[in-house]
């Protein structure tokens, strides 16, 4: 099959371009396979249910190019944007810095390295470790953007915790993307062996230039593994993010995962948990806040493939100005998965008349002895609450800020990494705060 070039495909994501990226042979093979699929991919439209309400109709691959990875993109040994956030994560067991999808720095505590913990660039680790694992979760849920991701995947954060090893402090991953028209393909793989424990904090940030961040996060939990995961998305104003975060949970494994989404022009996250064996538990939380013309788009899946599994989901968001949010979530209980306990709740505050939120919870239950609930709400701030605060002398701006922050409080209280509560609360407060920069929590 002749490889289409830019002229015929209308974009720079050609098999030749994919093949030209270096790296280990297993990764090249993976890219070439994906690039061949990509050549035949039809870009989705919002007529497809999974893309309903999205901005995918505006997606133009011709606006972006793969970054020029070059060799040793030297000056950026550190990605900007980690800043105080990285510092406030407190003690950390490891750090990965990723720039335009390529790992520029990776470190891990020597003691943990000696215990077999790997924190590295997936392109650098022993192919015996990485080749089988990359795609272990994400390959089960492809879409055109994961195919594009795989076709240009040349590196990423690879975190592996061997059986029985407990990593106390979080491992921090900082993703930074820059460059006009750049397409970045950040990839994070977290593998937790049997009875292993680890916490991973990721922050995604970018400049305000137009760019595409096509990200994949894989969380692979073996039997009785316990993973806490927090992703903070603070992209610049021109970023299109299309991301998949997918977790596979083995027997008695527990995942506590949170997403905080504040940035980007259009920022989509598919968040999926496959509860593959008995006793697995998945807890998915999210806080999102859109303003200006942003659209924040979430598609969630709690996929119960085994009996006696539990999942909970709480996504809370606010939109103001002309911002839009989409939540579309599915609890699936597969045949035979009895005694499943699954809940999903999505609540939205609409702060401006021009803003809007879609909320579509769904259940697909194919077992008869389960306990599943779903709830959804979209509404403005209650006038009675504003009046109540006004009778105490609280200004309208402050009242709105108090109510919005209060609305998110129950999610903040359940974050898997309490040390990050303060910086995250501050980030949200800044979003709410065209109003007032002061910290409302100072009083007590």
């Amino acid at each position, binding site marked *: 099959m002749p490889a289409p070039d830019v002229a015929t495909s209308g974009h720079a994501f050609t098999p030749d371009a994919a093949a030209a990226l270096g790296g280990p042979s297993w990764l090249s093979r993976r890219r070439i396979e994906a690039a061949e699929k990509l050549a035949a991919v039809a870009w989705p439209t919002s007529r497809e249910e999974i893309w309903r309400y999205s901005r995918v109709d505006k997606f133009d691959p011709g606006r972006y190019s793969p970054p020029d990875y070059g060799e040793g993109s030297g000056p950026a040994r550190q990605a900007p944007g980690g800043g105080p956030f990285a510092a406030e994560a407190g003690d950390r067991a490891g750090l990965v810095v990723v720039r335009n999808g390529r790992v520029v720095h990776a470190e891990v505590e020597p003691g943990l390295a000696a215990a077999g913990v790997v924190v590295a660039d997936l392109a650098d680790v022993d192919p015996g470790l990485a080749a089988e694992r990359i795609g272990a979760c994400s390959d089960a849920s492809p879409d055109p953007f994961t195919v594009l991701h795989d076709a240009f995947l040349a590196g990423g954060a690879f975190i592996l915790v061997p059986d029985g090893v407990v990593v106390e402090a979080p491992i921090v991953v900082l993703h930074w993307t820059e460059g006009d028209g750049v397409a970045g393909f950040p990839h994070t793989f977290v593998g937790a062996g049997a009875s292993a424990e680890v916490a991973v904090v990721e922050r995604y940030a970018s400049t305000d230039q137009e760019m595409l961040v096509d990200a994949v996060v894989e969380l692979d939990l073996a039997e009785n593994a316990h993973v806490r995961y927090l992703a903070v998305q603070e992209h610049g104003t021109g970023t299109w993010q299309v991301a998949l975060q997918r977790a596979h949970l083995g027997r008695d494994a527990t995942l506590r995962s949170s997403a905080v989404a504040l940035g980007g022009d259009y920022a989509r996250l598919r968040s999926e948990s496959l509860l593959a064996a008995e006793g697995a538990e998945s807890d998915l939380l999210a806080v999102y806040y859109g303003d200006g013309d942003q659209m924040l788009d979430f598609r969630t899946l709690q996929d119960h493939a085994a009996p006696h599994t539990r999942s909970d989901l709480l996504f*809370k968001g606010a939109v103001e100005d002309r911002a839009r949010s989409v939540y579309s979530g599915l609890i699936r209980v597969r045949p035979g998965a009895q005694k499943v306990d699954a809940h999903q709740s999505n*609540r939205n*505050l609409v702060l401006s008349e021009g803003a809007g939120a879609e909320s579509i919870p769904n259940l697909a239950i194919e077992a008869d002895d389960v306990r599943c609930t779903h709830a959804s*709400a979209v*509404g403005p701030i*209650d006038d*009675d*609450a504003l*009046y*109540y*605060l*006004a*009778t*105490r*002398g*609280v*200004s*309208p701006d*402050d*009242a709105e*800020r*108090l*109510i919005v*922050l*209060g*609305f*998110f*409080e*129950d999610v903040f209280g359940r974050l898997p990494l309490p040390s990050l509560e303060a910086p995250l609360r501050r980030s949200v407060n800044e979003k709410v705060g065209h109003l007032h920069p*002061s910290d*409302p*929590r*100072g*009083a*007590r």
Partner: protein
Amino acid sequence: MSVLRISGLRAEIGGHEILRGVDLEVRSGEVHALMGPNGSGKSTLAHVIMGRGDYDVTGGSVTLDGEELLGLPTWQRAARGLFLAMQYPVELPGVRVGDLLQAARRTAGPAAAAPGLGERITAEAARLGVRDEFLSRGVNVEFSGGEKKRAETLQLAVLEPAFAILDEIDSGLDVDALADVARRIEAMTTETGLGVVAITHYARLLRELRADRVHIFAGGRVVASGGPELAAGLERAGYDGLAAELGVELPAPVAPPEPADPFAEPVGF
């Protein structure tokens, strides 16, 4: 010494006149009880004084130390020294009372912005019998009736307004809570010179919160005023009996009876 003066106040809702020329003058340190049958417009008066948007003011004035308050938004009236303790305090999920009071004090001028808010709250909580857990929860969320009214009183005590309007602060209170709340407010009248307009159905509130003046409110206006003996007369004879004794005519209700609990639905999400 401050003066809250209401004169000739008229207001309507949806074209239906509720307040029909209210006159009332309250000075610092004074307690005025406003008693009247259901539908007489007492709660409407409270909300019109505070500037709730649902009502159209068609005449009269409300001044604080000579400054006209009508036309100011609610929060600015509060910042100038008014406070409304609500009959049904609104639940604010995730908003702690400390957050609320700090935001409130920011608008209330330099004196109110004094430091030590946390200590003030703790001290008032101890004085009012508000347990610590209520300070760390969302304001009014899953509070009992009594806890809500104690929390209202705590906010009132910390904010130290010039005048407080108490809209049936005695409803939903057991005897002990009523005594705690009323005694605390009575103490404010001497400690900080708080002036009080207490809307109530019950004379029992006025035994703890000693009223200087009692006003009978009916048909959207004050129909009779007197000392504490008026409340006693009301308890003995009822509105009709007292009206007959006083030789005044009780106007018909201006509003349908209030719904049992308009804020019974929780506010939050």
